C-alpha cells in the first residue's frame, strides 16, 4: 500500500493503464499525429478516423449518437458552452434559467455571468439531504424559462438527483434541460433519450481518462445549434474551434468504453468499499454523514465531525489524499457552499472530509483510512476545551 492512500477520485482519477496504453500508442505512432481536421492527406484522415471512433464510444455510454458529441477541454468548458451557448441562442425566447444552489462552480459562476448579461436565474435550494424535487423545478419554471441545469451527482456529497423526473418536467414545459454529469458518467446509468436530456456535460479525468478533454452532448433534434464560446476554425461543425487533440480524444473514448463495460461490477465493488469505510468511522464521536443516506453515488462518502477544526483534521489525515471542506475554497477560507445549503453549520462544513473511492481503491486502503480517521479525530477531541462541543459543534 503506497502512501498517501488516494481517496480523492471525485477530484480526479488515476489514469487507467489501458487508457494510458491507448494514448501512448496514439502519441508514439505516425498514424496518430496528423491533424484530424485535414482530409487532404492520409495522415489527417487516419487521425480523423480515431476521433470519430472515440465519438461513438462516448456517445454509447449515454445512448446518444456520435454526431451529437462536441469535444471540449473538460466539463468546465462543457458547462459554459451549454449554458452560455444555449442561453445566448435562445435569448429571444426568454431570459430565465433554473438551477440549484449545489451545482458545481462551473455552472454557478456561469449563471452569475449570465445574470450580468441580462438573464434571470432561479437557484433552487435542496432539502437537507441535498435533493431537488422535480416538482420544485416545475414550480420554478416561468413562461420565459429557456433552460434548466441540474447536476446528476453532486461532487461534494455524492447525492444523486432525479434526473429523469426533472427531465420529464422540462420536456413537458418545452424547456431545455442541461445535466452536469461530470461525476456520474460511468457510475450511474445515463440515457439522454429516456431521461429527456438536451445537453449533458462530461469529462474524461473523473473516469480514469486524461485531464483536459471533455464533451458536450447536444440533442440535435431539440436544438439545432448553440452559440459557440470561441471563434475560429470550422471544427466541431463550427461550435468549438481549435485543433482536435487526437490522443486525448482516444483516451476519453477508451475510458468511456471501459466504463460502459465495467460499470455494474465497478459500482458494486466500490459501493461496498464505501460502506465498509462508513462502518469503520460511523461510531467516531461527532461524525455525521452529509447528503441523502441512500440516493448517493457509490464512490463518495462525505462526513462532518463536531468539535474538530477543519484544517487540523485534514492535517491529521496527511496519509490520506482526501478533500476537506476546509480546503474547498482555500483561497477564501470559506466553508463549502454545498454543505451550507444543506443547513450545516460553518463548523461542520469546515470539518467535512470527502472520501472518494475509485476503481483502484482496495479494502486494505479503506481500513487504513478508517483507522487514520479515528485516530486523527481522537487526537483533536483530546485537545478540545469542552467536550460538549463535539455534539453541538
Amino acid at each position, binding site marked *: 500500500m503506497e502512501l498517501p492512500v488516494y481517496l480523492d477520485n471525485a477530484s480526479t482519477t488515476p489514469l487507467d493503464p489501458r487508457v494510458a496504453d491507448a494514448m501512448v500508442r496514439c502519441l508514439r505512432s505516425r498514424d496518430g499525429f496528423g491533424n484530424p481536421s485535414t482530409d487532404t492527406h492520409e495522415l489527417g484522415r487516419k487521425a480523423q478516423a480515431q476521433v470519430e471512433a472515440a465519438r461513438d464510444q462516448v456517445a454509447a455510454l449515454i445512448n446518444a449518437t456520435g454526431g451529437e458529441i462536441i469535444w471540449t477541454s473538460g466539463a468546465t468548458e462543457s458547462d459554459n458552452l451549454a449554458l452560455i451557448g444555449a442561453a445566448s441562442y435562445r435569448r429571444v425566447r426568454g431570459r430565465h434559467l433554473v438551477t440549484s444552489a449545489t451545482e458545481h462552480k462551473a455552472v454557478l459562476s456561469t449563471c452569475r455571468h449570465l445574470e450580468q448579461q441580462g438573464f434571470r436565474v432561479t437557484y433552487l435550494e435542496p432539502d437537507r439531504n441535498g435533493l431537488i424535487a422535480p416538482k420544485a423545478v416545475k414550480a420554478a419554471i416561468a413562461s420565459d424559462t429557456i433552460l434548466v441545469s441540474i447536476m446528476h451527482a453532486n461532487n461534494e456529497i455524492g447525492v444523486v438527483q432525479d434526473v429523469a423526473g426533472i427531465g420529464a418536467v422540462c420536456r413537458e414545459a418545452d424547456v431545455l434541460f442541461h445535466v452536469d454529469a461530470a461525476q456520474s458518467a460511468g457510475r450511474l446509468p445515463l440515457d439522454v433519450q429516456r431521461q429527456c436530456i438536451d445537453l449533458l456535460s462530461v469529462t474524461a479525468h473523473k473516469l480514469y481518462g486524461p485531464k483536459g478533454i471533455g464533451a458536450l452532448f447536444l440533442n440535435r433534434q431539440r436544438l439545432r445549434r448553440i452559440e459557440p464560446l470561441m471563434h475560429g476554425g470550422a471544427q466541431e461543425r463550427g461550435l468549438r474551434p481549435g485543433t482536435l487533440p487526437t490522443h486525448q480524444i482516444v483516451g476519453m473514448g477508451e475510458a468511456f468504453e471501459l466504463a460502459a463495460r465495467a460499470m455494474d461490477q465497478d459500482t458494486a465493488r466500490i459501493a461496498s468499499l464505501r460502506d465498509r469505510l462508513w462502518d469503520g468511522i460511523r461510531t467516531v464521536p461527532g461524525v455525521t454523514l452529509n447528503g441523502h443516506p441512500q440516493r448517493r453515488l457509490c464512490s463518495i462518502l462525505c462526513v462532518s465531525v463536531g468539535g474538530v477544526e477543519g484544517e487540523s483534521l485534514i492535517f491529521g489525515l496527511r496519509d490520506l489524499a482526501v478533500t476537506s471542506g476546509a480546503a474547498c475554497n*482555500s483561497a477564501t477560507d470559506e466553508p463549502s457552499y454545498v454543505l451550507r445549503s444543506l443547513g450545516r453549520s460553518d463548523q461542520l462544513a469546515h470539518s467535512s472530509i470527502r472520501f472518494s473511492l475509485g476503481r483502484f481503491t482496495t479494502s486494505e486502503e479503506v481500513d487504513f483510512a478508517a483507522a487514520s480517521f479515528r485516530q486523527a479525530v481522537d487526537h483533536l477531541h483530546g485537545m478540545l*476545551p469542552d467536550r460538549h*462541543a463535539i455534539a453541538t459543534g
Partner: protein
Amino acid sequence: MEYSPEVERYFREPVNLGSAESLAPHQIQGEAGSVERGTWIIIQARVEAGQLEAVRFLAYGCPHTIAACCRTTEKLAGAPVGELLNFAPDWLTDELTIPVEKAGKLLILQDALRECFDGWQTGAREHNGNYVDR
C-alpha cells in the same frame, strides 16, 4: 497550506496539553475565541510565588494555533506571571514559520493569555497574596 517541521512536531505530539482539572488548585485560567470563530483557546496556569509554575492549554484550532499554544506554554513555564502580558506574536511567527494570514489566530491566543493574567490579578486582589508575592 505549508507547515514547518516545528508546527508538524507540536501538532503530532503536543506539549502542555491540559484539562479542566489538571492544575487545580492554585489555578488561573484564560479563555478566548469560540468554535464559531474557528479558534478557541483555554490557557491554564498554576502560579507559585509570582512564577508560572506550570502552564497548560486546550484548543480548538488549526495546526499553527496548536503549535503556537505549545511553544508559548513551554516558554512561559517558570517565567514571572507578568510575562503573560508580554506575548509577542512576531517571535512565534518567526520561530514556527506561521503564515501572515494566521495572524488573527495569534491574537486569540494573546487574548487568552491576557485573560489569564487578569484572572490572576482579580484573584490576587480577592485573595490578597494567596497566589502572589509582589
